[in-house]
């Protein structure tokens, strides 16, 4: 047996190291559909507890919406369970094309190609459209999947300080001679909840002849007046050359992602993007659910409007309670605790109060920037938010951090 004790010990030691560093990740077992309230078994074997979920990407509350579930069920009946194929051999059904067309219309682009996930879209897109003569200039806080995609691409790389337009302009000047210059950013940044300055980025792109790439996974469906995303919010619909986004968050929450944008760039992905070419097609059941999601949000902005109201209430409530949040306007609201252990202890206390939220610390966020990331949903009703706010206030008081500034919290708990 090749996997002998010596080899086993190598991995056991590595896992011990992860434990010792305090960054071992444990899965929480959820025994109910995704919703504003969920039933959780944590730790494994503990009795189940009904808690308010403040950490899902279920922004529009559509993950378990009856119309979506029904559409998925119909899709299962009419188009089957799986396709046993990649897209270009025998894995493309009429509903895949229908979903791509609907996404193109929704995002205001020229064409769209589906991927098994947005992680796959980001992993495949750069290599498919860029070569050694080109340069990718990315914001320093882009999502890990973009970083991986950039690593797989032969184009030159450079970065600009987070949302620093002066620095971006310097980089565009530095790489003036590259064949294609691609500016890469998230639309909404997942850890801080802030939005990219797309209006200024597009202006710089036009000035220096660069293309713009936006990962709008944490914005599609709810940012902008009709929820089309950060480009709608910033008034630059039609000016973003590549948008990647996910069907795994607001847009139904199941799985799947896409590259949407200029026709030729999307076609290059169909010809060359390896995660598209070498992984299975999205199952019909998920495609059918996603089509229903797009139909729901095309009819009414009711859900994104409710999410906006929930976000305003939550941001105001936390601030008035005396907690420090990252300013912004998105439903990603980080409650800043700075100290890693405090973020873990705070989350445990919240759980005791019936609130499910997760503490993040280095290396997920910078050292000394530990936090609890809360995420609002249109599935949250006022009573959920009232209870959650009361719990945050109670736990904040218990740790003595209400109305304390950053330095006072650090003095009390350390970095």
């Amino acid at each position, binding site marked *: 047996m090749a996997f002998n004790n010596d080899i086993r010990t190598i991995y056991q030691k590595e896992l011990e190291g992860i434990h010792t560093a305090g960054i071992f990740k444990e899965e929480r077992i959820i025994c109910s559909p995704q919703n504003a309230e969920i039933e959780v078994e944590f730790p494994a074997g503990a009795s189940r507890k009904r808690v308010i979920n403040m950490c899902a990407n279920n922004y529009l509350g559509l993950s378990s919406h009856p119309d979506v579930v029904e559409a998925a069920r119909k899709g299962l009946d009419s188009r089957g369970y799986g396709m046993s194929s990649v897209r270009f051999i025998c894995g493309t059904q009429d509903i895949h094309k229908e979903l791509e067309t609907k996404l193109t219309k929704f995002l205001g682009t020229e064409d769209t190609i589906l991927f098994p996930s947005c992680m796959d879209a980001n992993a495949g897109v750069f290599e498919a459209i860029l070569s050694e003569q080109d340069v990718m200039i*990315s914001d*320093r806080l882009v999502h890990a999947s973009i*970083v991986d995609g*950039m690593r797989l691409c032969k184009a*030159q*790389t*450079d*970065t600009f*300080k*987070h949302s620093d337009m002066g620095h971006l302009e310097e*980089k565009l000047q*530095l790489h003036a001679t590259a064949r294609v210059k691609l500016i890469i950013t998230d639309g909404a940044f997942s850890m801080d909840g802030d939005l990219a300055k797309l209006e200024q980025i597009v202006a710089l792109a036009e000035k220096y002849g660069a293309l713009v790439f936006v990962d709008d996974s944490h914005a599609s469906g709810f940012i902008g007046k009709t929820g089309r995303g950060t480009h709608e919010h910033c008034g630059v619909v039609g000016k973003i050359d590549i948008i990647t986004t996910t069907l795994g968050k607001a847009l139904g929450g199941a799985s799947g992602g896409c590259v949407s944008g200029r026709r030729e760039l999307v076609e290059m992905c169909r010809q060359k993007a390896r995660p598209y070419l070498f992984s299975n097609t999205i199952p019909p059941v998920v495609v059918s659910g996603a089509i229903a999601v797009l139909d729901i949000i095309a009819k009414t902005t009711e859900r994104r409007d409710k999410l906006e109201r929930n976000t305003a209430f939550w941001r105001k409530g936390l601030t008035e309670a005396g907690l420090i949040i990252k300013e912004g306007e998105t439903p990603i609201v980080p409650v800043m605790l700075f100290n890693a252990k405090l973020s873990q202890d705070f989350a445990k206390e919240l759980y005791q109060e019936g609130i499910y939220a997760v503490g993040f610390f280095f290396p997920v966020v910078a050292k000394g920037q530990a936090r609890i990331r809360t995420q609002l949903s249109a599935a949250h009703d006022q009573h959920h938010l009232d209870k959650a706010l009361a719990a945050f206030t109670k736990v904040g008081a218990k740790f003595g951090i209400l109305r304390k500034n950053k330095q006072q919290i650090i003095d009390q708990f350390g970095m």
Partner: protein
Amino acid sequence: MSELKNAILDYVKKEYLEEDDEREVDFDTPLISGGIVDSFSMVSLKRFLETKYKIQIPDAKATPEAFDSVNHIIQLLQEFNIQ
């Protein structure tokens, strides 16, 4: 020599540290292995050196090890008779 070292150190601080970044960076601070300069951003440092000192650093010499501290960079520049 100290002017050269300070010029590079100043560039590193301006280019790679955020305003609220309180990390101390000196001539021996590990830049790449220490997480201050990531591999994607190294190109700026290379371009800065090439432009300022009018040299061409071949990719084979522009390794993470060669760029891992200001003192390492000084050693690299000495190969190009920059002192």
